[in-house]
């Protein structure tokens, strides 16, 4: 990874390490803070819109400083539909993440470790499931769901979320498994572990950064999914995204509510992120343990 000490080309170019380190740090943080600003500004604006009193959401010059009001949030919470859909989405999306990992990660492992006949075609086939824009496949899905009695069921939505994320999980995890030396599993198998145990106890822990990354991404993909939720549900399984858009009316947009709902939707993601934060960076430095 990026290192902080100096590696100048020749002795004459040697800069004092402190100076260089400081310089590198300054440059690094300048870039990071710039991007942070770019990221934060719209988010701040979103959040501030949700906290502004009615009618001031879009005023210019902007009210940089204003008395925040939680009016919109109270409205949101009191709208039992929103809270219910929020909870509903949370359950469905979480379940789908667990399920898609359960289905996708083992398959990725097999694709990484075994010689599969026509492996490339299989991989492209898997990828093809995410190639078409959802609108192009929503009709057939609607038909399937009706036929299988999955329409407007949570189970159906969980499956739907699984299917939109499966290709991602399989591909990304295959890449991560490819980066884990097989010697580790060999050791496990020699230690008397079954293939499965070797996978579970040795490979999975080593692939943690990858697993948690795809978990986050899958969560987000499912969490912000709109079209399938729209077409494949009507009452029972309605996801929260639909509610968020319900503040975009035919002849008016409730900016405060829209912003509040959008902000509220970010919260679970942030909580999830903080919870798995440490695993994202659980690098393992195989080289220390395996002579290569």
């Amino acid at each position: 990874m990026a290192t902080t000490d100096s590696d100048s080309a020749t002795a004459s170019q040697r800069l004092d390490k402190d100076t260089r380190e400081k310089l590198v740090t300054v440059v690094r943080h300048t870039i990071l803070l710039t991007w942070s600003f770019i990221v934060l500004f719209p988010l701040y604006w979103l959040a501030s819109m949700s906290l502004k009193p009615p009618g001031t959401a879009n005023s210019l010059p902007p009210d940089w400083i204003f008395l925040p009001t939680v009016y919109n949030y109270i409205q949101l919470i009191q709208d039992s539909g929103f809270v219910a859909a929020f909870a509903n989405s949370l359950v469905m999306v979480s379940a789908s993440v667990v399920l898609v990992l359960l289905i996708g990660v083992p398959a990725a492992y097999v694709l990484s470790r075994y010689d599969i006949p026509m492996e490339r075609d299989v991989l492209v086939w898997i990828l093809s499931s995410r190639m078409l824009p959802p609108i192009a496949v929503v009709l057939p899905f609607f038909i399937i769901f009706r036929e299988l009695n999955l329409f407007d069921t949570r189970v159906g939505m969980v499956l739907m979320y699984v299917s939109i994320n499966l290709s991602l999980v399989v591909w990304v995890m295959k890449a991560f498994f490819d980066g884990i030396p097989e010697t580790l599993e060999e050791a496990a198998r020699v230690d008397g572990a079954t293939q499965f145990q070797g996978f579970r106890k040795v490979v999975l822990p080593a692939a943690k950064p990858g697993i948690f990354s795809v978990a986050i991404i899958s969560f987000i993909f499912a969490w912000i999914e709109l079209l399938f939720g729209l077409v494949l549900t009507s009452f029972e399984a309605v996801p929260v995204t639909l509610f968020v858009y319900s503040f975009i009316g035919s002849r008016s947009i409730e900016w405060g509510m829209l912003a509040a709902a959008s902000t509220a939707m970010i919260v679970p993601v942030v909580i999830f992120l903080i919870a798995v934060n440490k695993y994202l960076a659980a690098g393992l430095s195989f080289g220390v343990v395996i002579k290569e």
Partner: protein
Amino acid sequence: MSTPTQTETTPQSTFARLRDLWNDYLPYWFMAPMVAVMVMITFFPGAYDLYLSLIAEPTLDVFAADFVGLRNFETAFTRGGAIHSFVITITVVVSALLLETVLGFVLAALVAGVGSDRAKSFYRVLFIIPMAVAPVSLATIGRIMLNSEIGIIPYVINTGTPFAAPSFLSDVPLLTVILLDAWNWTPFMFIIFYAGLSSVPKTLIEASRVDGAPMWRRYVHVIIPYMKPVVFVATLIRLIDLFRTFGVVYGLTGGGPGTATQLVSINIYEQMFINNQITVAAAIAIVYLVVVVALCNVIIAKVGFEGVWD
């Protein structure tokens, strides 16, 4: 690795036999659910779209349909603006992909090198959040923020910098779409690259430092090649996702002004839900699928996805 059918144990009890069945055929068990889901989500929709693309108009009785050969494809390319959409889409895909890949990697590398753990965690969480803003929210709120009269962004640019803000949605719509997409999806690249970076063995980096490689060459020659599978997969998936980008762009520009940002997905949407030309939409989708599959095949063949340990 050994052949998939290499057995693990010699069976005794029923339980043991079951367990052996599990272990001996592990790859099959591991693949089966994935394959089942994939069959469900690819074969029928694919076949259905193909069927739609070949008929005059959808009928409730599948067999009563009137097959019209390639007429829908012809319509797609003559009236449907399919070619224009492909050109626009490719422009967006290429530029956004480049931007997001580079930005995602640079950010991941920079964050990985941050000394303090807390700062690191902070950046890690912050940089992922944009992805979590739901597309229509982003588009709706993005529109208002970019609005030339009452938007905060032109306001900040006009008052805070010596530059005059362009009229984002009408003067530079494609650029705006690309930049917004970068804001939205660079996190995807960031998170995968970051995870990939953290699994590069420390010793390799040490070796390259000892070998006298300056930082950027370490990345070019050692780290990125080591991460190749991850970089490749992230880029490919982002490429595919970019190809089918819809929500944000539709919400932001609706494909306009005129057809300046008419992505293929928007074209399909309009054919389907506005023009009510479901069959033409299906034809575009089929062409599109063929193009993207072919593209992926070419990319995979050219770049390959073998891991370093293969």
